[in-house]
């Protein structure tokens, strides 16, 4: 199989939500000596980006996105361990979770998928995450971006508490904070001192990558 055939195949597998095909082609990419980084970015992530675009245009919906996401991860599970990064190319680190009190994670999972697609190493704390866990993990993993979300109005205050916690630990300026979820507005994000609120997962990911790039690489000392 030609390299571009494999890469296009990976993109197609994600678009069509074909997990098994994505795994097979990822293995084939390794066997045929395709650069695994290229296979992830130009193959899998490209497919996810196309799906995200279709979602914005109402040509695809959550079922399609979830299937695409599963396919992307199936391929990434095989390819990522073989990617070697050097020096400044190290992956940006994302700490992500649904805030304490919120047991929903479909929105959070989609953001995580898009963040992975643009190249973040995503540390997923899951749902109903205690406020301290965001702060502790951000410090331990020397995070670039912290993403906090909630779908429930009753837990919006906890989103603010994560930002306050980062401040009181003196690490607020070392990370970019993005907050999201149905009840959260840009005004609310500003009010609690977060850096950004995006209604859309892919936009959130693109913003995060750019914002992470503005952080000093040696800020964690």
């Amino acid at each position, binding site marked *: 199989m030609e390299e571009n055939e494999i890469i296009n195949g990976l993109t197609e597998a994600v678009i069509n*939500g074909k997990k098994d095909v994505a795994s097979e082609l990822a293995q084939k990419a390794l066997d045929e000596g395709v650069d695994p980084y290229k296979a992830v970015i130009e193959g899998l992530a490209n497919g996810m980006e196309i799906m995200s675009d279709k979602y914005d245009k*109402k040509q*695809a*919906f*959550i*079922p*399609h996105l*979830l*299937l695409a996401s*599963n396919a992307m991860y199936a391929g990434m599970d095989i390819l990522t361990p073989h990617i070697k990064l050097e020096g400044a190319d190290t992956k940006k680190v994302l700490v992500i979770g649904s805030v304490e*009190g*919120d*047991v*929903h*994670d*479909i929105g959070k*999972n989609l953001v995580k998928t898009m963040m992975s697609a643009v190249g973040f190493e995503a540390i997923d704390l899951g749902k*109903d995450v205690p406020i301290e866990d965001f702060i502790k993990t951000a410090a331990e993993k020397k995070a670039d971006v912290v993403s906090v979300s909630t779908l*429930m*109005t*009753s*837990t*919006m205050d906890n989103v603010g508490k994560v930002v306050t916690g980062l401040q009181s630990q003196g690490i607020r300026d070392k990370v970019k904070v993005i907050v999201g979820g*149905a*009840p959260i*507005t840009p*005004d*609310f994000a500003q009010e609690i001192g977060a850096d950004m609120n995006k209604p859309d997962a892919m936009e959130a990911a693109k913003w995060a990558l750019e914002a992470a790039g503005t952080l000093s690489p040696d800020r964690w000392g």
Partner: protein
Amino acid sequence: MDEYTPKERLARALRGEKVDRMPAISVTQTGTVEQMEACGSFWPEANEDANKMATLAEAGHTVIGFEAVRVPFDITAEAEFFGCDIKEGTKQQQPSVVGHVVKSIEDIDKLKGYDLSKGRIGVVCDAIKILADKYGNDLPIMGSMIGPFSLAQHLNGDDWFMAIMTDEDFGFALMELTTEFNIDYAKKMVENGADTMVIIDPTASAMLIGDEFYQKFVVPSHKKIVDAMRDMNVATVLHICGDTTPSLTLMESSGVDSISIDQSVDVTNALSKADHAVLIGNLDPVSVLWKMDPDGVKEASKKVLDDGIRIIAPGCGIVSNTPNANLQAMVEMAKDHKY
């Protein structure tokens, strides 16, 4: 003198019939901390005990001035009934579903043959009975339940969104179970005194799943519930979260009497889409009802009323920390409004 009792007024208004003025109601959950403090009945106990539930529901009328009483305050009793793990709520927070019990068609079969007197389903029906005995001649008694699609999602977890695409047989089988349950439960609420049925189906949004899946999985199921209620002379309200503007035509094709629209819907736009369903909404429960002061609420209400909303109400569930004064301001605006 008012021409109608609140009960008659709402029954007519929800069906788009002529009324003397706007009814003052909330079709979404009404419980707040200030009301709990006023009536002495608090979450989470008010979710578990019929007397306490009725007391807090009653506060919506006696403390706020809503011209209806409404139970329950959350949408997890149904999933709990089928055995899903629930994270208990607090004074400020509703319970939530954390575990799922359906993975296969066999699992669905095991859930058939349920007993509606069990669990919080039974508690809600008992609370309706208490409220109906006390207020049933005069006030609307609103029963509310999670809709069949969102219940299916609670039972199956997020895999549900993929299942409707990858495993149609399973998808239809689960919808059949939840729809039948919804009908049985709604009928029981009505037998206990409910005269208005609110279907809260937050994840059944065509914006999330697309028109095609909505048409296939949601519309027929809503229609069955609506028809069963119409046979009992009960008006129906459908609430779906998010910007439902493009799907209003599809939503009302189930025959539902009224649709409760979210704050992200533009009222003028929505009115031009909905053909027969009465539109209810859509004050933002966070940035308006919770965070503003009464004057701000009145101003926001005026805008929605000027846009032509048929019944002003919160766009989604009321936040528990919402001040009484803000809800009272909304009630006042509704009562003052003639069509």
